[in-house]
């Protein structure tokens, strides 16, 4: 297999594996930038995947081709509402944010499976029949070499994820909202003295994380698993959290990290088809993505400074 052929397989793989992680990680960036740790991304993705699939099944007949879009919208809203629990507990009730996030994960899995059993009377939903299609991006896909690698046979959601990362970067670094959000995560007391409503900003941060993780979960379920069961989301939320930290709480960094995970995954898969690699035990390929991540962090990414106030509930006047 030539390098070009390998790339034609690795890159599209990286793109679709990364897309749900990018969405979710962007959500994580919002929440953590506002100072609220979000271990609950996994649970929020579960809600997104669950609602995305159930909605898709329910409204497929009416909405036709537009179904997946509406399903993602519904998942977004549902997960945002669900994240309200995390917001209320960790912001209003000043709960330990890690604890609350863990509770989100338990609750999401329990509740969605409980409902699946209640609705479908079995352990998983039916399979959806309408999903996103693979597409070639007009014009760009005609560019020699690059077009085939980057712009053919991908999913629109992958490109949207990347565009969204740029938008989030803009929002966080260029708008008043972003400035305030970051100030609340770095020094809430300072923000408070400047008349910024710390509580409100943090609620928005958490709700956005819910919305984005909802999209992430729905995209995963819609494109990849096409049904919902206990195994649909198994660790992707944690990988997204890792992407947030890996990307140093920066939207583009998080996107880069998610793409890196995708690439490593692609590499490990392509490895199995390269002749001389075929003889090495498959375990090396299985752990490749994880080892690469650790090496990357150790070798050249190194230390990341989290938002200063991350994890601490804001109490007026606390010393």
């Amino acid at each position, binding site marked *: 297999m030539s390098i070009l052929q390998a790339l034609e397989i690795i890159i599209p793989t990286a793109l679709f594996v990364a897309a749900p992680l990018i969405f979710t990680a962007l959500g994580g960036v919002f929440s953590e930038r506002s100072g609220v740790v979000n271990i609950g991304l996994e649970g929020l993705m579960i809600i997104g995947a669950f609602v995305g699939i159930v909605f898709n099944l329910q409204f497929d007949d009416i909405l036709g081709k537009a179904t997946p879009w509406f399903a993602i919208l519904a998942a977004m809203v549902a997960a945002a509402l669900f994240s309200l629990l995390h917001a209320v507990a960790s912001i209003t009730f000043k709960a330990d944010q890690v604890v609350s996030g863990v509770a989100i994960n338990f609750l999401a899995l329990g509740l969605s499976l409980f409902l699946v059993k209640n609705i479908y009377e079995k352990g998983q939903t039916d399979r959806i029949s309408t999903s996103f299609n693979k597409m070639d991006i007009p014009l760009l896909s005609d560019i020699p070499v690059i077009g085939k690698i980057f712009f053919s046979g991908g999913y629109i959601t992958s490109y949207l994820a990347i565009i969204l990362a740029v938008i989030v970067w803009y929002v966080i670094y*260029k708008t*008043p909202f972003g*400035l*305030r959000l*970051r100030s609340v995560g770095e020094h809430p007391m300072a923000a*408070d*003295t400047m*008349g910024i409503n710390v509580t409100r900003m943090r609620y928005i941060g958490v709700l956005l994380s819910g919305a984005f993780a909802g999209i992430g979960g729905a995209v995963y379920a819609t494109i990849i698993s096409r049904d919902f069961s206990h195994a649909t989301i198994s660790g992707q939320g944690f990988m997204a959290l890792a992407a947030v930290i890996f990307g140093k709480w920066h939207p583009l960094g998080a996107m880069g990290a998610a793409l890196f995970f995708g690439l490593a995954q692609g590499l490990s898969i392509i490895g199995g088809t390269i002749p001389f690699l075929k003889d090495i035990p498959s375990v090396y390929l299985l752990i490749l993505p994880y080892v690469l991540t650790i090496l990357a962090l150790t070798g050249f990414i190194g230390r990341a400074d989290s938002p*200063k106030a991350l994890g601490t509930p804001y109490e007026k*006047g606390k010393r």
Partner: protein
Amino acid sequence: MNYVIEMLNIRKEFPGIIANDNITLQVKKGEIHALLGENGAGKSTLMNVLFGLYQPEKGEIRVNGKKVNITNPNIANDLGIGMVHQHFMLVNTFTVTENIILGNEPKKGISVSIKEAEKQVKEISERYGLAVDPTAKVSDISVGMQQRVEILKTLYRGAEILIFDEPTAVLTPQEIKELIQILKTLIKEGKSIILITHKLKEIMEVCDRVTVIRKGEGIGTVDVANTNPNELASLMVGREVSFKTDKTTAKPKDDVLTITDLIVKDNRQVPMVNSLTLSVRSGEIVGIAGVDGNGQSELIEAITGLRKVASGTIKLNNKEITNMHPRKITETGVGHIPQDRHKHGLVLDFPIGENMVLQTYYKQPFSKIGVLNFKTIYDKAKSLIKEFDVRTPSTSTLARALSGGNQQKAIIGREVDRNPDLLIAAQPTRGLDVGAIEFIHSRLIEQRDNGKAVLLISFELDEIINVSDRIAVIYEGEIVDIVDPKQTTEQELGLLMAGSKRQKEGN
């Protein structure tokens, strides 16, 4: 009489403590009004009430004669009240401009117009003579500039009444001079100012009237013109206070600390201490005078093992301690009152009692074969707390809950009690009231009289001159001169600190 601010019979409680009890403060338009009180008297609390951070349990606030209800800082801002906090309220990762415009950003479309903002910041800073670099990151600028940023924040919002909570505690003498100039400019521009400070000299110099509070209660308001520092001090503390630190002449003996050709680099690998040579003898206090940022921090960190030495040697009682582990150095006989008590001095989430054995917990009698003996630890803590007058509800109170002054007294107690051959005191009285300062100075002198060596680093020339037996002036990482405090003046020191000597020699 028309007051811009009236706080009438304010009462503010915290769990277990009444921070303000029936305090009245009235500020006239165009005056600089000082608020004076010991550490923990309740000054910051009162100002936080005025700024809307706390809600009082009782009392009334009037602004320009109108009764107001300030439930959050936004309302305070709208009323024209701005506050420069004791602990800076700056986002370190933001630029100066971003900090100033936060919450009130000029916009272009949906994004922040940074250009416009920088222009506005420049304008205001020029108008009031507050030099700042609008594009610099706050973490990269000096403390003095950070304070100017704080002032700009209030002015940007159009504040008419400015509250300064201990603005001079963190400044160098030069910066204090500049600040006083700024205060005067502000008054000229028609602003009114409330100034909290422990430095009576400053009050005498710039203030019109002063309100004194003691242990949460208002003692009264006096005109500065009709009073003197001694009266103010006794009003505040409730007893007579002496200012001149009494001490006998030093009887120095052998070298305790010997530093030769020391080079220390900072985190960016820039040498901050440059071939520095210095010695401190037993039975003397050597003061290091210098403008902040001339290598003082790096010097201390090098001596105490917190930072690696690039070259040169440090000896304690003729034993080399260069680049030894902090614990070894501590055990060899070095005590250290750190400059930043929150960062280094205390584990804020430990009880104050456990903080008292932070370096000695592993030794007898505090522990035996690796097991802590809490009874002896807390007994020790109790006696230290008593001896050093640390005001805390109990030994099991978290260090976090103590006021800055009391935290500092706890650290000093801990370090002095270990009776080290060399005691390094970095800005030991920063932010403390005169009573506490007096106490700490006498402790340092007592150490000296017991034949110990003391190295004092301070930005306060008064303190350096009063306490030291010799003054070493540091400039750009070098000791440029050593002077006798009895023979020198603030002017001379100021010039040395500004590098005059080196320049002369260079010529």
